[in-house]
């Protein structure tokens, strides 16, 4: 039985877009968490870390409620932007960003916190703003942490199942990613198809992790 490549491409597209958006959102957030002395910082840290400890179905359930066209947020999105997030690819992207946020934020935050404080202070005494210091001095010296964040976010999004099922369901070409396709194939007793998808994900994940460890060893600032 020939394999349907669409779930694989959809998975890679979802993981790629999620990772890209996480870079844009996660890096400033990680920087703020690493460098800020804001009193309520632990609250933000706890919120960011929630997806690690919560079952995906819990996150998925609340996002489903929030994105539903009958809820405040969902209705507003539909009315204002004509966007419906439940059972759509956009919804999967938003849910994946929230769910994979700690996998981008934690490594980058830890990388920034481990840098000598004197680098930051040297930049300040040289008249440079905190933002310029962050982009020119701190972030470029966190390459291994950044790479870890990128790969963990990408790999974690590839492996999502419960959240995707709750938010996206199983719509071919829209929300039917590889993990859903495996579940679907097993349900239909198409073990050969399930095996093909599973082996592909296994190989892909292994190669990604292998690349991370190999590159991280070589990365020099």
């Amino acid at each position, binding site marked *: 039985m020939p394999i349907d490549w669409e779930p694989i491409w959809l998975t890679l597209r979802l993981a790629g877009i999620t990772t890209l958006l996480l870079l844009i959102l996660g890096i400033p957030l990680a920087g703020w968490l690493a460098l800020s002395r804001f009193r309520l910082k632990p609250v933000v840290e706890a919120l960011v870390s929630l997806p690690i400890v919560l079952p995906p179905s819990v996150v998925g359930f609340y996002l489903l409620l929030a994105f539903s066209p009958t809820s405040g947020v969902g209705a507003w999105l539909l009315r204002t932007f004509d966007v419906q997030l439940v059972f759509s690819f956009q919804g999967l992207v938003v849910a994946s960003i929230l769910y994979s946020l700690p996998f981008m934020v934690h490594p980058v935050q830890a990388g920034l916190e481990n840098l000598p404080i*004197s680098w930051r*202070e*040297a930049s300040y*005494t040289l*008249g440079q703003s905190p933002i310029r210091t962050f982009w020119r001095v701190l972030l470029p010296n966190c390459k291994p942490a950044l790479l870890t964040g990128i790969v963990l976010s990408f790999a974690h999004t590839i492996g999502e199942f419960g959240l995707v099922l709750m938010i996206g369901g199983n719509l071919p070409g829209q929300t039917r990613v590889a993990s859903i396709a495996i579940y679907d194939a097993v349900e239909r007793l198409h073990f050969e198809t399930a095996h093909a998808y599973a082996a592909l994900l296994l190989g892909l994940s292994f190669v990604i992790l292998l690349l991370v460890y190999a590159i991280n060893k070589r990365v020099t600032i």
Partner: protein
Amino acid sequence: MIEFDLTIPRLFSEGTGALTVQLTLETGSLTALTGPSGSGKTSVLRLLAGLDKPTQGRIAVDGVTWFDPVHRVNLAPQQRSVGYVFQDSALFPNMTVRENVSYAAPTGQVRRVDDLIDATGIRPFADQKPARLSGGQRQRVALARALVRRPQLLLLDEPFAALDADSSQALRPVLLDLHRQWGTTTVLVSHYDADVRALADRVIYLQQGRIARDTVVAGLPARSGERIEHIHFDKVTQQWVIDTATSQFRSGNPDWQRFAVGDQVRLQ
């Protein structure tokens, strides 16, 4: 003229207390802060740079107030005209030596960067990353970087501490030449007598967060009016040494042999 009066609570080896330092530094002077570990030397530099905030006091540099809680003035480190050389040099590893020096250079000041690179003798490795440099070379780069904005106040925190004797000896004339050439008011933290003797024209000895001794190496300070309690010639340093109740003055000036115990230290 740099005037400061700083107070901050601190933990000393003999218990908690307060770092309280009041000083006036002449423009263009090179003052050394010495004293045992934990006496508050580095804290003074950090307070001057704005990296830490005093609980009370005042800092004024050439008539401009940098810190005055009464008038709610507390300039950020970026707004203070300081150059700071850290003990670990704090060079940015992602940048080459030249990039480190030019990182904070004012726009269009390529020549100043080149001048500093030459003055500190770092041109042979200007295109290398700091990781490939020795401790002494790194401190030269840090010195050039700290001076690139022509700061009013140069703060040197144990620049020789991590260096071997040869590197330390090689760095001293570089520092002294730059000080003479650029005339930047400098505060040097060091607990090495050799560095202090070779560089400083005034030595402040801190103990438990207080000034225990204020020694002017050359010339007599304008503020003095005390009587000489003791005078002798130090054969090792080839200098006359005058002790008053609170201060010690040193100079190689042969005219000092005319002073005697009981003379009042005159204004200059």
